[in-house]
């Protein structure tokens, strides 16, 4: 994986740049010592690491703006960082960059139940947004699996999803407004507590822009009344095809579960060995969750299990109580941990049209044999977002490269069948060089033009998202 050569003019001015940052920020908000900056050398894509020039940890929008003005003036690239849970390298620094971490900005600024929104600083963790409102019967819907740790800032940067987005949508569908600090240090409000700002939908394009258009310091988020209850049903099938047909029939019948999760045999086995959730020994497993009152749950589950029975399930298990529901989810929720027990793994994130599921899983099986690497598949089946987990051994020379090559083949397959490279993790550095598989030069040009407008000097997270060759002229300028 290539990164641009760090600029010598920046490296040689480190002392002056740090001094200028210290002059405008509180003493404890600027870190330059290697012992301390080490914690920021990578995110959850830990195969790639690089120590930054310095790290700044502002506490307010004004401090974010002050730090950015210095970096802009010095021509220093800035890598915005939420909690560092990106699986795509979105927060990975370069040697000549300043990391701007928002994790100290975690306050709730306003909660308004009458109008159903919460206004927070962007460093607040996803789960603690729900934590701030759940005693009053509300929740924040997007639920990425890293929700305990991940920050709202990162969720907005990557337009994060989660298991329950089939019903509630992803971050962009639950985001009402942001305070955006541009690279030039200008503070701009996009959207707000009401639904529409006149003019172009800049909020919509900032969400998912991977920290390349500005630093989001505050956000207005939609909060929803908590449903009365939720319950999953577990189904096992004799083949991936049959499980796929069952998913299609549920959707076709007009039932909208909050989640439909899919696991294939390698993944089921790993989870079973790790978490002992009592999953059936079968080729494919679905967990379907519905919400509502007891009577509403029963009504939906009756319709769903009736559909499942038409597909000869080898197992069909409705949660009877809270403990049972937890056990059904246990295996799925520990899937990544379970695979990690077996070996190092790389988690992919392509999306495919649901109808192509059996074919894609068959092809992934073939690629697995071809490359000699095991793969387990976890999958948000309702919306086609797959997470193939490729197992490799980081200590075996060449294994990581082989794994990445196989991952690239799987993602190309996703695009080929009408899907995309990434459904919820983002492009970052991980999928940057594959962008040309999905987008023609004119498509990438149109996206880069947006960055030209927000960040004319291309200083914000510049070596991400776009293939280096495509962005070369802009980054140099």
């Amino acid at each position: 994986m290539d990164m641009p050569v760090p600029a010598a003019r920046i490296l040689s001015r480190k002392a002056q740049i740090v001094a200028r940052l210290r002059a405008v920020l509180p003493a404890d908000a600027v870190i330059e010592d290697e012992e301390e900056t080490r914690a920021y050398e990578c995110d959850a894509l830990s195969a790639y690491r690089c120590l930054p020039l310095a790290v700044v940890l502002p506490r307010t929008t004004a401090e974010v703006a002050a730090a950015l003005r210095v970096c802009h003036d010095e021509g220093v690239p800035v890598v915005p960082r939420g909690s560092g849970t990106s699986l795509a390298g979105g927060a990975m620094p370069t040697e000549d960059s300043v990391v701007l971490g928002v994790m100290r900005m975690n306050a709730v600024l306003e909660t308004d139940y009458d109008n159903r929104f919460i206004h927070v600083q962007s460093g607040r963790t996803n789960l603690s947004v729900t934590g701030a409102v759940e005693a009053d019967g509300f929740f924040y819907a997007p639920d990425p699996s890293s929700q305990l740790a991940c920050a709202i800032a990162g969720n907005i940067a990557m337009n994060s999803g989660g298991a329950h987005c089939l019903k509630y949508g992803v971050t962009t569908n639950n985001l009402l407004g942001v305070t955006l600090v541009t690279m030039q240090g200008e503070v701009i409000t996009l959207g707000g507590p009401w639904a529409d700002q006149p003019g172009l939908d800049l909020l919509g394009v900032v969400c998912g822009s991977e920290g390349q258009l500005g630093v989001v310091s505050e956000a207005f988020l939609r909060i929803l009344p908590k449903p009365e209850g939720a319950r999953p049903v577990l189904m096992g099938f004799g083949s991936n095809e049959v499980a796929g047909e069952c998913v299609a029939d549920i959707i076709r019948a007009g039932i909208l579960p909050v989640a439909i999760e899919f696991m294939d045999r390698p993944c089921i086995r790993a989870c079973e060995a790790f978490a002992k959730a009592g999953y059936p020994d079968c080729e494919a497993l679905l967990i379907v969750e519905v919400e509502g009152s007891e009577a509403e749950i029963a009504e939906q589950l009756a319709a769903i299990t009736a559909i499942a029975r038409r597909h000869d399930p080898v197992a069909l298990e409705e949660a009877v109580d809270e403990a049972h529901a937890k056990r059904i989810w246990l295996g799925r929720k520990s899937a990544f941990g379970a695979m990690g027990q077996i070996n190092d793994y790389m988690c992919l994130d392509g999306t495919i049209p649901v109808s192509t599921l059996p074919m894609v899983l068959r092809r992934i099986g073939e690629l697995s044999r071809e490359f000699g690497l095991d793969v387990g598949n976890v999958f948000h089946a309702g919306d086609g977002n797959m997470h193939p987990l490729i197992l490799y051994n980081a200590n075996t020379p060449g294994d990581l490269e082989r794994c990445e090559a196989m991952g690239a083949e799987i993602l190309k397959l996703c695009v080929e069948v009408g899907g995309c490279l990434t459904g919820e993790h983002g492009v970052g550095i991980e999928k940057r060089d594959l962008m040309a598989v999905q987008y023609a030069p004119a498509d990438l040009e149109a996206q880069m033009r947006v960055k030209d407008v927000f960040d004319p000097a291309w200083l914000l997270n510049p070596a991400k998202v776009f293939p280096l060759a495509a962005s070369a002229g802009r980054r140099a300028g």
Partner: protein
Amino acid sequence: MKGQGMRPADEAEVSDMLRGASGPFALRGGGTRGALLAGEVLDCAGLTGVRLYEPAALTLVVAAGTPLAEVEALLAGERQRLAFEVPDLRAVLGRAGVSTIGGVYAANASGPRRVQAGACRDAALGVRFVDGMGAVVKNGGRVMKNVTGYDLVKLMAGSQGSLGVITEVSFKVQALPEAEATLVAGLAPEAGLAALRRALGSPYDISGAAHAEGRAAIRIEGMAGSVAYRVAQLRALLGGDWQAVEGAASQALWQGIRDLQPLVGKGAALWRIACVPSEALCVPNALAAAGVAHEAVFDWGGGLVWLSCTEGEGGRIRAALAGRGEATRLMGAEDAPPFSPPAPGLAALQTGLKARFDPKGLFNPGGLV
């Protein structure tokens, strides 16, 4: 307006036309809802056809000029629909013409169900358009979860033709519910709007919350047993006298709200006000205090106020909002601009995008951007 206008038959023709063009053009879908701007008409209604419809994947890909009615009929045949419930504003705006799906997307036209299912922009999955240099650009795709690169699908939704000629759009569609019911109560606006907010803050998954002509209306959709259950729970929660209207009668009631029937043939000016729901009455109250005759339809639990009044009230309306919302004029002539002027930093970003996507200023001069 010069000449007879242009009517390309496909995307390649749009691209060819724009490469050498000096414009300006007034982009037109069906002319049923957008501002009617000066310039040679570039009629997009020739770009028709359903490219892909997979009911089991809830996905539809359709050429931009395809009539909305055709799309709706196709979906209805599979017991599906566009979740965002497109308003038909022809009667209230005094327009004729055939609404196109691309026009709907360019206007981000979204009806009562937005409170539950989101706006048009939330259902849009992909877009193809031709920029001001004649380059064909695609973004997004046909799958429901896609974070590959920047989300230009959102940028183009509601862009009102300011950045490019939209040629194709993909949408996530929704299954028709088994049942629907609406609770209706005769209530003054203040009490009615408070009831709407109360209902929206309950776990009963409201899919419509409006107040018009002295009545508050709350819609519930879903499986039959669930609808009956929620109707009973909401009655207990709200107290007072709520009548349940079901099936076709409920549908007709919401069509009336969606299409602003209470405002047809009323004042010469029509304003659309997006605001914090609890502030929905600030403009109507200010007009009442000044003795200005007006009529309002409150949708989205008060987050959207449609206001019909005499021309020349723009200044008073924006002063009453005072940062608590935004007012846009859809009909009526007066000095106040149709859109609230954006803050300076925001304006620079908008004009910057316009300059890069449409450097020759071909599209809709005098429009949104």
